[in-house]
């Protein structure tokens, strides 16, 4: 019992680490990784204890109380949140250990660990929050951390631009979330914002809140999730965010923060269940994003960008799962994805660390140079592609079977996405590791143990995590739903066979194209140069935004600037000019000649006399 009650301590370990690192500053370089990792380790240990205990617990204190309205700060431990706590603290611990090697020579390593600790604190706080407002606060805080860490190498102009883009684009979604919070506050009985209250009000459509409003709130919440989780059309920031250090990409932009959107929807799932329209929106946006991002990933050349689009695609799967009503499938995939995508990013970081290149056209033949990395990357790739028995297969299977139950169109889209996923992973893997070593690969060498060990841990998890919820052992879904009967039927063997076959087909095509060279990928590019260019630029969504939103907005800004410069400033200058002109005029009067002063005095005297004497005529 004691562990759940002290769950509020979990985010405080990284916060303490952050404060310590910020206070100590630069002179603390050698200790920074240890302090950062210790903070995450503390959180991890407590999280595991809380999760193992498996007791729901809730506590809160009043924060602001005005006239019967009260806002509270509180924490809530449920099975869902305790699972998220473990995932977040585990991945962050591994990333902290890994960064000790990866960021070893960086000048600002203390700052880096400070930011990471702050992020972990905010993320854990987000997970633990018991009400929407508090969740929103932490939601913004993780956004800030993401901004700081994407722009960590701020001397690179791309990193600066990417940080700004990440912040501004997610802000659009955050505005939606804020509106949702305000609407909830307005319409909820007693203005309650806590998740338990939301659960009670919306469960089984009690009718306390109008249907239209429910749909609106759900869609606005979804808008927040779209921004944070990089769903179409707000996905554009995520590929650019890869300018940040690679461990950050693994932690924030693959495993935890981007999954916050999925977590948010899972947390407020009852809202969506109350609104079929919102559910459908989530499902279709998710399925479209999954397919859409996978096609883009096929044409990218940067290792990290491929992985970023893959992340978007996988988040699309999670949204799809939520949209078809399989919350457990989404969380299951979130968990397995956190492990194998973090593994892939860390392995990619290892490649970049060794070869100092991240363009797959310049890499090649690294398999012989970096055997361990290549095996670990392979495990991650197989898990992502959904090859049994790796974890990705099980979670993807759960999603696909839920989609088939719901709507065959979504199932087909998911299946197609799975094919593309295994294809681009095969392309990435074979281009980087197979074949003859390229020039850039010549000097590459295996990464140090401090980087390999976290990857090995993640690889083990990527293999075994899938067995948490297999068709014959639905431990996770049962556990998440708190002993209720499983929401989705056990997946049919057909789905499993089909999805595995499709994934294997993708791998086979990739193998033919990039190892056996029976299919020349260049022939596709040559046949349709426009298409590949188009895909490479991500369907030119950025350009579309630039011309549809950014440019008119900039024109508006220019217009406002001109208005400000010529009209507002004009008035100001006119006032100033009038004053100074009057001053110059009167200064000319001040010529130091007594006679001029005398004339002025006489004229003034006459005016006074006229006024005094004239009063008798009109009064």
């Amino acid at each position: 019992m004691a562990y759940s009650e002290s769950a509020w301590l979990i985010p405080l370990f990284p916060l303490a680490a952050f404060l310590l690192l910020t206070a100590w500053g630069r002179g603390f370089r050698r200790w920074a990784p240890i302090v950062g990792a210790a903070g995450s380790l503390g959180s991890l240990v407590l999280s595991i204890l809380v999760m193992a205990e498996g007791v729901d617990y809730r506590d809160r204190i009043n924060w602001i109380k005005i006239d019967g309205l009260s806002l509270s700060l509180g924490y809530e431990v449920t099975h869902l949140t305790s699972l998220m706590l473990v995932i977040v603290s585990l991945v962050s611990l591994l990333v902290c250990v890994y960064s000790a090697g990866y960021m070893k020579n960086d000048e600002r390593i203390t700052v880096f660990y400070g930011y990471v600790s702050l992020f972990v604190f905010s993320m854990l706080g987000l997970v633990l929050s018991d009400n929407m407002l508090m969740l929103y606060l932490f939601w913004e805080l993780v956004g800030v951390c993401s901004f700081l860490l994407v722009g960590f190498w701020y001397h690179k102009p791309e990193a600066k631009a990417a940080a700004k883009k990440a912040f501004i684009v997610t802000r659009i979604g955050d505005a939606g979330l804020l509106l949702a919070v305000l609407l909830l506050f307005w319409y909820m009985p007693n203005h309650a914002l806590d998740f338990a209250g939301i659960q009670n009000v919306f469960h089984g459509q009690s009718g306390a809140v109008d249907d239209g409003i429910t749909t609106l709130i759900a869609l606005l919440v979804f808008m927040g999730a779209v921004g944070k989780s990089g769903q179409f059309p707000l996905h554009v920031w995520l590929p650019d965010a890869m300018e940040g250090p690679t461990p950050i990409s693994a932690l924030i932009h693959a495993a935890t923060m981007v999954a916050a959107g999925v977590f948010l929807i899972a947390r407020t799932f009852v809202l969506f269940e109350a609104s079929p329209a919102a559910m459908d929106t989530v499902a279709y946006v998710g399925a479209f994003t999954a397919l859409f991002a996978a096609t883009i990933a096929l044409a990218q050349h940067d290792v990290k960008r491929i992985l970023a689009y893959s992340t978007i695609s996988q988040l699309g799967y999670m949204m799809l799962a939520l949209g078809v009503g399989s919350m457990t499938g989404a969380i299951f995939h979130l968990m397995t994805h956190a492990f194998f995508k973090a593994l892939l990013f860390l392995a990619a970081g290892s490649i970049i660390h060794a070869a100092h290149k991240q363009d797959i056209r310049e890499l090649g033949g690294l398999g012989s140079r970096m055997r361990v990395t290549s095996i670990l990357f392979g495990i991650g790739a197989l898990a992502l592609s959904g090859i049994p028995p790796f974890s990705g297969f099980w979670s993807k299977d759960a999603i696909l079977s839920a989609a088939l139950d719901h709507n065959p169109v979504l199932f087909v889209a998911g299946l197609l996405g799975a094919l593309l996923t295994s294809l681009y992973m095969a392309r990435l893997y074979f281009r980087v590791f197979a074949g003859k070593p390229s020039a850039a690969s010549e000097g590459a060498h295996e990464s140090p143990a401090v980087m390999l060990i976290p990857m090995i841990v993640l690889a083990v998890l990527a293999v075994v995590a899938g067995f948490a919820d297999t068709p014959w052992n639905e431990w996770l879904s049962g556990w998440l739903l708190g002993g209720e009967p499983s929401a989705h039927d056990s997946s049919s063997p057909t789905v499993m066979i089909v999805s595995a076959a499709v994934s294997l087909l993708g791998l086979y095509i990739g193998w033919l194209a990039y190892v056996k060279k029976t299919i020349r990928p260049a022939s596709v590019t040559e046949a349709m140069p426009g298409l590949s260019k188009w895909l490479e630029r991500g369907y030119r969504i950025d350009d579309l935004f630039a011309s549809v939103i950014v440019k008119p907005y900039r024109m508006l800004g220019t217009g406002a600037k001109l208005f400000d410069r010529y009209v507002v400033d004009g008035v100001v200058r006119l006032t100033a000019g009038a004053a100074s002109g009057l001053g110059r005029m009167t200064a000319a009067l001040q010529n130091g000649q007594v006679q001029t002063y005398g004339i002025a005095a006489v004229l003034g005297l006459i005016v006074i006399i006229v006024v005094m004497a004239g009063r008798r005529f009109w009064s």
Partner: protein
Amino acid sequence: MLASYLTMAAILFCIGLYGALVKRNAVIVLLSIELMLNAVNLNLVAFSKYGVVPSINGQIFALFTITVAAAEAAVGVAVLIALFRARGTIKTDEFDELRR
């Protein structure tokens, strides 16, 4: 007749005022001021005879005025001579010390 004397004094005063404000030679400015003082004297004496309470006091006042005017003229000319010695001119528009 009082009105005629007063009008006469007003004319003299205004001419003196004009001269004092316009003339560039400081001596003439002094002279114009004497003219204005004379106009005042004329008024005083006219009221001394035609006033509501005719009295010799008007003439006494005029006498004092003449005395003060004489002293003023003497000091004024002395100042102008000193000024001329220092600056080489007594043009009124050459002096704008008040500006500083």
